[in-house]
């Protein structure tokens, strides 16, 4: 089901060894890339005391929680509890794992086991992600002439093809922008889109 996949950022914005916050529908996520490039998306909550794992740190193929340093492998299983260095953590201690893939420079997340069906964004170059304080319904105002297919809005900017992948976050939306034109111009155009949509919300 392609509708289950939610765009969560651009590959270029999540380098090796970095963790960031993400979302899947109402759920808050921690999305991270290991030293060898493996992507993972988990519920943003450490099983120990509920600290956001997106505040944690990546060492090699593990993500550690910033609060007490509990360390988890890419399968989500806890591999180390620093307060008890000699203890092997029970298998039950496990982060809640989502499926996470990237294609055409976009990072996508879905519940574990979801079949991978993603829109084709080939031929476009990732530009930037912009968060707009408006709901999805307000987007039409800022994107005249754009056509929506699922999460992707396609159109032209100064004659060049543009695709905006929409991450619906309830009160706000993040637009992950890709295009065939000059990146600087597209980046500034995206700032303009945001202004237009938000002014419409205020008016």
């Amino acid at each position: 089901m392609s509708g289950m996949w939610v765009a969560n950022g651009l590959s270029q914005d999540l380098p090796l060894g970095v963790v960031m916050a993400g979302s899947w529908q109402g759920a808050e996520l921690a999305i991270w890339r290991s030293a060898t490039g493996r992507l993972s998306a988990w519920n943003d909550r450490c099983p120990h005391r509920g600290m956001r794992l997106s505040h944690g740190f990546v060492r090699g193929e593990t993500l550690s929680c910033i609060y007490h340093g509990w360390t988890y492998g890419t399968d989500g299983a806890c591999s180390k509890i620093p307060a008890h260095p000699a203890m092997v953590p029970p298998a039950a201690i496990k982060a809640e794992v989502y499926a996470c893939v990237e294609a055409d420079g976009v990072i996508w997340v879905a519940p574990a086991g979801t079949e991978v069906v993603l829109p084709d964004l080939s031929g476009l170059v990732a530009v930037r992600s912009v968060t707009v304080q408006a709901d999805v319904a307000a987007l039409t105002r800022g994107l005249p002439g754009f056509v929506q297919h699922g999460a992707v809005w396609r159109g032209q900017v100064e004659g060049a093809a543009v695709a905006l992948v929409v991450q619906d976050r309830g009160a706000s939306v993040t637009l992950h922008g890709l295009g065939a034109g000059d990146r600087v111009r597209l980046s500034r155009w995206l700032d303009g889109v945001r202004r237009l949509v938000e002014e419409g919300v205020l008016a």
Partner: protein
Amino acid sequence: MIAQAVLNEWYPVAMAAQVGAWPGRQTQLLGSDIAVFLDAGEIVVQRADGSALAVCLRYGHVWACLGTPAHDLFPIPEADQPGRRLVDCGVVRVKCSPLRAVENFLDIAHFPFVHTDVLGAEPHTEVGRYEVQIREDSDEVWATKVHFYQPQAAKSASGGIVTEYMYRVAAPTAAVLYKTCPNKPDAWDVIGIFVQPLTEELCEVWPWMALFDDATPQADLIQFQQMIFLQDRSILENQIPRLLPLDPGKEIPTQADMTSIAYRRWLKRKGLTYGAQMVAA
């Protein structure tokens, strides 16, 4: 509905030295608007409707009770010990459950990661076995014989040492710790954390100290304490859920968390559930 047991407890609402004339300090206690002000030389705490609350002044702070006080405010005998310096450290607001703020204060395992190179540092992350009891006579939670390796245990410490701690939950939102005193090996430094519950998810925290330390300037002592507490703040504001889960199963404690387990059990047993989550969401 707030449980009567919660209403009948004492909570800190101001630093005594800072209370001024009306309008004084306009704040909240357990969701009720209150004002703390000086009236003819007396400190008064009153509700929005003008009714006065029971008040007591101890440990540099103003304590108030919205209900009928079930008992006197807990004792800290060290506060009256000659030679100790009492230090009020001011207030910090934190968007978290008041109970999570106390629980964090009772926790040592986070020192290497949150108070890095001060209260802890990798690879010295081990928390040894310690003793925890709910003392029936005083109705308090105590943890004793807690040992931890610290690179700089106090403002007056130079170099790493294994520090011994005792922790004590004296009231639902007040805890006191005793730690090895670098200046006086036969005595304990005493540090309190007094938490004012504004709502179930918002609190104001008043750290307080009673130390044997004549040398360190006041501003340094306060800033050391504020540095430590502010390192915790970004943790406390990012725990999910905001309320402290009292039902086992929602979070996973280990042996290092015995104090937290006892604290949660004690809260539950006494019905002190303001700021707690009872049913797993």
